[in-house]
């Protein structure tokens, strides 16, 4: 559940928060593109370091570290899967390349998670919905999307209550073998899913009683506007993207590899 906490929006006043959601989306896309264009360790670590000022500027360090801690399991999973594949395909030899490659892959995941965090932590669900709407996506889809985002913390809290309730009935989650532990989650998942479905039906009824979809053309109180700061950021983003692509094609990245620690 910690991973989700890292994506929960909080109202803070910062230069990043003030950017238009569409601008922030482009920033995230550019970071995504860069992360996928390169597998080199040196580039990915630079990319990671380049994200840190954004995190600090947006004042989301705490939530960001929390989400990374929540994703630690996945980071390890990526690292070891790559490492094992590397070792197996190299005649069971641990090479410096495979170690570097696995580290790069984990780092790539961290970079993606960070850009995700920056986007979701600094964009309110309402702004996000508005941005989708103004990008001419049908309102029903925008609404479904923002509702889904908004209900994530509610669902997380509910999962916690259900866990407490079942523990109070003697359920011990951490007991038993692997299969038993998986089965232990059935009493938690069923109430969670049932209540989510029940809530969605109630939500639909509540919306209908408030005339959802009565008018095809909707107007909104706040309209998003691209400001000068957005244009400057976007121009910067495209310059960076162009440079990245140029680098990818024409400039070799120096090979920095991690030496194998002596065992």
């Amino acid at each position: 559940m910690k991973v989700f906490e890292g994506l929960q929006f909080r109202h803070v006043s910062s230069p990043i928060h003030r950017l238009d959601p569409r601008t922030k989306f482009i920033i995230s896309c550019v970071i995504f593109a860069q992360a996928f264009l390169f597998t080199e360790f040196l580039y990915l670590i630079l990319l990671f370091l380049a994200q840190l000022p954004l995190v600090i500027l947006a004042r989301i360090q705490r939530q960001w570290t929390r989400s990374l801690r929540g994703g630690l399991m996945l980071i390890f999973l990526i690292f070891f899967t790559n490492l094992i594949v590397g070792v197996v395909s190299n005649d069971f030899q641990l090479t410096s390349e495979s170690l570097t490659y696995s580290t790069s892959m984990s780092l790539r995941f961290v970079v993606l998670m960070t850009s995700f965090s920056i986007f979701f932590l600094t964009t309110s669900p309402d702004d996000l919905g508005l941005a989708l709407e103004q990008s001419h996506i049908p309102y029903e889809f925008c609404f479904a999307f923002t509702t889904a985002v908004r209900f994530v913390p509610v669902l997380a809290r509910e999962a916690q209550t259900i866990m407490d309730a079942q523990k109070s009935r003697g359920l011990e989650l951490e007991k038993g073998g692997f299969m038993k532990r998986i089965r232990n989650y059935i009493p938690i998942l069923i109430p969670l899913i049932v209540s989510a479905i029940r809530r969605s039906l109630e939500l639909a009824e509540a919306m209908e009683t408030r005339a959802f979809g009565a008018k095809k053309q909707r107007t909104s109180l706040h309209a998003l506007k691209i400001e000068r700061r957005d244009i400057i950021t976007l121009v910067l983003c495209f310059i960076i993207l162009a440079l990245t692509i140029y680098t990818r094609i024409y400039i070799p990245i120096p090979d920095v590899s991690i030496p194998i620690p002596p065992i």
Partner: protein
Amino acid sequence: MIEVEKLSFTYPAGIEALKDISVTIPEGDFVAIMGENGAGKTTLIKHFNGILKPDTGRVYVDGIDTKKASVAELSRTIGLVFQNPDHQLFSETVEEEIAFGLKNFGFQEEEIPKRIDWALNLLNLMQYRKTSPFLLSGGERKRVALATVLAWNPKTLVIDEPTIGQDYRQKERLRHFFNELHDQGRTVIFVTHDVEFVADCNPRVLLMYKGQILSDGPAKQILTNHEVTSKASILLPQIAQLFHQLEDFGLPKEVITIQEAKGLIEDLLKRCDVP
């Protein structure tokens, strides 16, 4: 026996829910925990079976520090029924739902059906034995949730908002049922906003206000005290309101049960020679 010593608790989000609470609930006590929304009632009872562990202070259940025991271990003696039954029902039939807790606590195969029968009977749910709990009404689901906990016969029963969604007849039944458990020597603790229900039950009342215990004493004393009840956003029971207004007739103010009120009014009428 539950002993709470100087308990304070703050939620991770920074809400200070309990501030330096000390209270002892001896075995066989009958307690209603009351207070406005957000007073810390549910947070307090979640400390009784170790779901929440104190930030500072201690909670002892029969002498065992809750910090040193698992929720499952403590739940064997402290049966906690959550407010919303939908947070725990998951089985295909009511019967299996009740068996879940019994299996977790390691009851013998042959004893389980007997206990299921007993619990179903007690809560008037026999006809739903093979029904899916999801098909029952809200009030019935609440009773199933209570039955699932009751089945393993915990020494102490802690119930969060038992009267929500229950009609008058079910409330009456619930009251008799609480009295019965109490008479059998069990400790019954419930959280509620329902003043009339508390007045009828006549238990010890713990009145909470902003994470602290505002006052603690017999219902008769607390639910007739205008000062503390209004601070805790609680209306006096109707009988108490009536007797506050009849003060000029020389009637006592500390009256909450219909039985007692009836006696006093009869005496008054006799004295006035009304036939």
